[in-house]
């Protein structure tokens, strides 16, 4: 590894759909890399490892997630429990929240030359809405305002394996991540497996249109990391 890394070249900001008109033509020097995958797929661990590696190489890195922004705050969780919100309403809420992060955090960081590592992006939001019955087309159009990342990896784990990882980690299952709100099965294990399969199917469907690269994440952390680092390295320094 050489001590000096060349700066990443500048390029225009690109969007999925119609994009954000008033930001068109902006130049960015950074890169946007997304790690997608269900809870227990090792996303956060990989984000940490990749951050450390890129920083050791001299790149400035910032991470983002789907955590609620200042715009909406924790209010949505309380409201969700008290008064059920409609499916489209919820999807729009998450879109508004995401737009806030995109415009106030992700785009400024990209302009400043940071490599932005996103621990989840719009794909999780779209998949969650679609499995709950919202029109796939509508969601795709709605999220047409978002920035097209340079790389998107999807950590693919077999649902049965995922169950063990989640159970070991949290000693229980998350209500929404097991699709318990969908009434799929009285048995939470069954519900979890069915829900995760539905989500995986949506991610599979998005591979082509959104350029998602599936990564076999049934392997060890080290193996998955070597795979990801290799791909990121090739992209950043050889452009492929």
């Amino acid at each position, binding site marked *: 590894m050489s001590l000096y890394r060349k700066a990443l070249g500048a390029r225009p900001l690109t969007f999925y759909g119609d994009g954000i008109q008033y930001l068109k033509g902006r130049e960015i020097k950074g890169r946007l890399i997304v790690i997608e995958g269900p809870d227990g797929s090792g996303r956060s661990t990989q984000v940490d490892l990749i951050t450390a590696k890129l920083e050791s190489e001299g790149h400035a890195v910032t991470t983002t997630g789907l955590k609620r922004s200042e715009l909406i705050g924790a209010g949505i969780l309380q409201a969700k429990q008290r008064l059920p919100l409609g499916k489209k*309403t919820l999807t729009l809420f998450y879109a508004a929240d995401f737009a806030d992060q995109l415009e106030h955090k992700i785009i400024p960081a990209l302009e400043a030359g940071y490599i932005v590592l996103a621990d989840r992006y719009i794909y999780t939001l779209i998949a969650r809405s679609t499995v709950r019955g919202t029109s796939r087309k509508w969601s795709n159009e709605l999220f047409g305002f978002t920035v097209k990342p340079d790389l998107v990896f999807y950590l693919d784990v077999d649902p049965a394996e995922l169950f063990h990882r989640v159970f070991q980690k949290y000693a229980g299952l998350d209500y929404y991540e097991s699709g318990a709100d969908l009434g799929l099965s009285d048995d939470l294990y069954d519900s979890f497996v069915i829900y995760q399969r539905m989500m995986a199917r949506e991610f599979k469907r998005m591979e082509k249109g959104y350029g998602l690269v599936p990564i076999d994440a049934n392997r060890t952390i080290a193996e998955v990391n070597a795979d990801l680092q290799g791909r990121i390295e090739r992209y950043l320094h050889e452009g492929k």
Partner: protein
Amino acid sequence: MSRRAPLSKERQRGRLIVVEGIDGSGKSTQLHLLDQWLRHLGVRVFSTEWNSSDVVKEITSKGKKKALLTPTTFSLLHATDFADRYERNIAPLLRAGYFVLADRYIYTAFARDVVRGCSPRWVRRVYGFAAKPDAAFYFHVPVEVAVKRILTGRPKLKYYEAGMDLNLANDEYESYRIFQGRIIEEYKRMAATEGFRIMDGTLDIEHQQSLMRKQVLEMLPPSVAVLASKELVAQ
């Protein structure tokens, strides 16, 4: 007993009537009078206003003050508010046969968000799930008339209400005037394609109301329409 038709195929039985126009165009007054008339006739009515969902307000109120809204987040929050009212009230009540009266509808977003710089096609797609109204009344008034109605008494204009985020002018009243003028331009642009029923907002209130009632009369169930038309003639 007849077999129940599958719900999804059942026709939407209610009627959706909306009013559009800039602030001070008199649309809310007219919609209120229409609401009162329909209630008097024994029609089931539900009225709903733009940006009025309690749940959405509760969730955003904390954030809104702190965060700076961009045209995109501004647009999406209003879409969220609309979706909540649509999913909770408008859609089910139309199915149940109500006359749903909306003070501002998707066209407000089409006008305002586009003036703020959002993509016209994107905004229309975001609201793609909303039913087309049975009647959309657009209240046209020259910008100076409407602005005068609003600004008499020099009220304190809110930052976004005055369009201050657009950097149109340093003075909030001047900014408001320019902003409202641009919104009128957007309304005009969509009037034909969206099938607006144009109302002259400078006419007397009573005159406007009777013009509106005549058009709504045609949407009433026959039994109610007979009674209503007698009353309208008597006036």
